[in-house]
Structures are given as C-alpha cells and as structure tokens.
C-alpha cells in the first residue's frame, strides 16, 4: 500500500523560497500571483495492507521524523 505525505510550512512562518518563486514568476510576466508557498511531498511504499494501520504508522513517522511540527503541518493520503 502506498502513502503520500504532504508537508507545508505553517501559516505565519515566513517562506523565503516561496517568496523567491513568486518574484521569479512576476519577472516572467505571470501577473496576479499574490503568494507562493513551497512544500514537499514524500511517497512511501508500505508492507501494511490495512489502511487505518498504515495511516496510524505514517502519522507516527511524521511526528517523529518527517515533519518538524514547530514550523510544519502535514497531511497523509493512503492509496
């Protein structure tokens, strides 16, 4: 079973990379981009076959390693 973890900086945490991308888009002529936030996606292949257990495990992985919850929020998709 596969899991996909989406990690984003929390609202209020400055994202200088997103800001740089916004500037670059503007200089390429893409007007009207008010804000850009950059995050990451982590895909996991899991041996687990029970979706509920998989979600539980991946959530524990996020809390322990994959995300830094001081500044990042995450959500988990199980497929």
């Amino acid at each position, binding site marked *: 079973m596969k899991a996909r973890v989406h990690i984003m900086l929390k609202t209020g945490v400055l994202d200088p990379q997103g800001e740089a991308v916004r500037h670059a888009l503007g200089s390429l002529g893409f007007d009207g981009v008010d804000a850009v936030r950059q995050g990451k996606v982590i895909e996991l292949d899991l041996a687990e076959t029970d979706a509920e257990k998989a979600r539980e495990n991946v959530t524990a992985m996020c809390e322990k390693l994959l995300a830094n919850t*001081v500044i990042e929020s995450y959500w988990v998709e199980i497929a």
Partner: protein
Amino acid sequence: MHAAVIVFPGSNCDRDLAVALERAGARVSMVWHKDTSLPEGVDLIGVPGGFSFGDYLRCGAIAANSPICRSVVAHADKGGYVLGVCNGFQILTETGLLPGVLLRNSALKYVCKPVELRVETAASAYTAGYSAGDVVTFPIAHHDGNYHTDPETLRALNAEDRVAFRYVDNPNGSVEDIAGIVSENRRVLGMMPHPERMAEPAHGGTDGAAMFAGLVDQMANA
C-alpha cells in the same frame, strides 16, 4: 575536563572543535554517530558543524534521530553540558533540547563571512569568559541559520536571559537578531557562528578562545 565530540557523516568542524577544546586543556574523545553510549565521565558533549547526512529532509533531522543522540539527550537530561555549533545547533533544535528551528536564510544565500556578535549574557559556563555587552567576531558559514520560534518562546528566552549572542548586523533574518541561545538550565548552548574557527592567532582572531577556556575553567572548578 573530559569532552566528547560527536562525528556524523558530513560533519566538517568536528576536528576544529576538538582542537579548540584540547588547546583549552580538555581531554577530547571523538564519538561516532552509530555508537550508542558515551565514554565514562564525559562532562561536555560537542555537536559540531557540517552537513550531517547531507542536510537531507531538514538540516539536522536525521542526525537528531541517530543512535548516539539518545545518549546526548540523556546526558543533557541529567544536567550535562552540550554545545552545538552551526549544524550542531540545528541538531539540538531537532532533538528538542533547544526550542525553535533554523530556517533557510532570508536572502536564500549561503553566507560565509566573519560577523560581529554581542554577548548578551555572561551567566553560562560558555559565556563566563566574556562580559555582557562585549562584541566579538566569529565566522558564520550556513544556508539555514534563520532562527525562528513562536512569540511565547521568544518572550521566555528574553525573560529568562537565555539569548547568549545576537548579531550586530543580522546576516540571515533571525528573529530579534538571535545567534545563540541556552537551555532553561543554561547547560545546553546552540549557536550558528563558529567560536572554534576563531580560537587561535592563525585563524585571524582569538575571540572564540575565551569560550573554551571558560568552559574548561568552569568544569575544573565544578
């Protein structure tokens, strides 16, 4: 005084830190990240600068979960001393021994240059060799040194006199110019600038030497 310096794959200031401690009179053991225990009787653990595990995932995140870091946290929890410099500071925030996090520099550039710092408190074993208000020059060399924490923690750091150093001219966007902080019990210090790279005349300056001399002195008297 017996110090242990942790070596991760990608550490590159481990030997500099060891030499600075040795020249100040400490006995130093190098400890590999896969080791699970520290040498007997270690007073201070040095977590060095570098790019542990290639800065993968987040700077310091993988190192913070390495086997030796459990012993580092246990050492700190028992009231032991831990000094984290640069990547070491990032690792200490990831372990939770120090609050906050080091974000990407606000100008998105890797910054490598000597910077002036103001010593904010002399009330720690690390800064006892200075006076509050002293201005020292240490090099910085980092891409992710932009210190960030929530307003409540920031208030606590200020109220408890836990900001050890501030930048005179903020190079990375750190909140309130913070360059280094100490833990609640003042025995864990994390800082982005490199005192070990300004510790003898051949480095171009000796402002960092007082930190290591002060540490050895404090622990010899403890």
